[in-house]
């Protein structure tokens, strides 16, 4: 069993949600933060000029928003689900509702169906107003229960 699987198990046991986030290099690169609020996991993508995809508007790159939502879904699965392995994305569909301004962005996920092999997860991202999402994803992940480790 690799050190990373142990790290996930330790982070879950100690409630160190940010430790779990930082264990993945790309998350640290984007500066993603996560916290629990009323039992739900809220992820934050802090304002960062290097994420700009459209300098005219300006707006965050759609790929970064997609990545952030995929990440939020993965954290949600790791944090609430039975798996201690990083879920593998099978398919992801990103819907873009509005351009994401260069400011803090938040996201929240929910599990639609947790099967023994596949989890279907939805996540949505917003900026100033949770009722005005900038984007949402629907994704299917391959998961591996902890006991298979």
């Amino acid at each position, binding site marked *: 069993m*690799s050190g990373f699987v142990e790290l996930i198990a330790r982070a879950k046991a100690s409630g160190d949600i940010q430790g779990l986030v930082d264990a993945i290099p790309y998350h640290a690169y984007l500066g993603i933060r996560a916290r629990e609020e009323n039992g739900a996991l809220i992820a934050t993508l802090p304002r960062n000029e*290097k994420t*700009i995809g459209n*300098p005219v*508007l300006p707006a965050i790159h759609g790929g*970064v928003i*997609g990545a*952030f939502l995929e990440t939020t879904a993965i954290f949600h699965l790791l944090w609430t689900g039975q798996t201690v392995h990083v879920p593998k994305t099978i*398919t992801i569909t990103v819907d873009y509702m509005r351009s994401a301004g260069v400011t803090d962005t938040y996201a929240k996920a929910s599990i639609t169906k947790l099967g023994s092999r596949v989890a279907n997860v939805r996540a949505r991202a917003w900026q100033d107003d949770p009722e005005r999402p900038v984007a949402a994803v629907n994704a299917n992940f391959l998961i591996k229960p902890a006991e298979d480790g």
Partner: protein
Amino acid sequence: MADPPTDGPVNPTKAAFSSPIPHVAELGIELVEAGGGRGIMRLPWRENLVGNPETGVLHGGVVTTLIDSICGIACLTALEKPQPIATLDLRIDYLRPATPRRDIFAAAQAYKVTRQVVFTRATAYQDGPDDLVAASVGTFMLTGRLGVRAAKTGAKGAS
């Protein structure tokens, strides 16, 4: 960002899209070719873009950025007149994990242009166009009116 030296004459379409996207430059993504509603980009492997430290495989989100970017460029080269665009939706199927420490390429085609929407398809691959890592379909809105509004408010942008 300077273009690498090329053997032949510089492709004017490629030159036009070489550097205006800050995040694409930030990730080290390079435009290989673009024109006529098609485009190819290359993403070199980088340790800080890894999504699974158990395996060294890049984060899927980086592939999303690569595919979104090249689909956008394919759209722009398919338009008769330059217009701003915005991704409406993008579906990506991950066919296999990308092999660590190797480049990932993405090739896109804007296969249908309508008055308001452009339809795209794309693949990501490593050892050749048949060695697929991911497949994607997307739609892009033509947002000319928004672009005009941004210009009027004095927003500075790419040349």
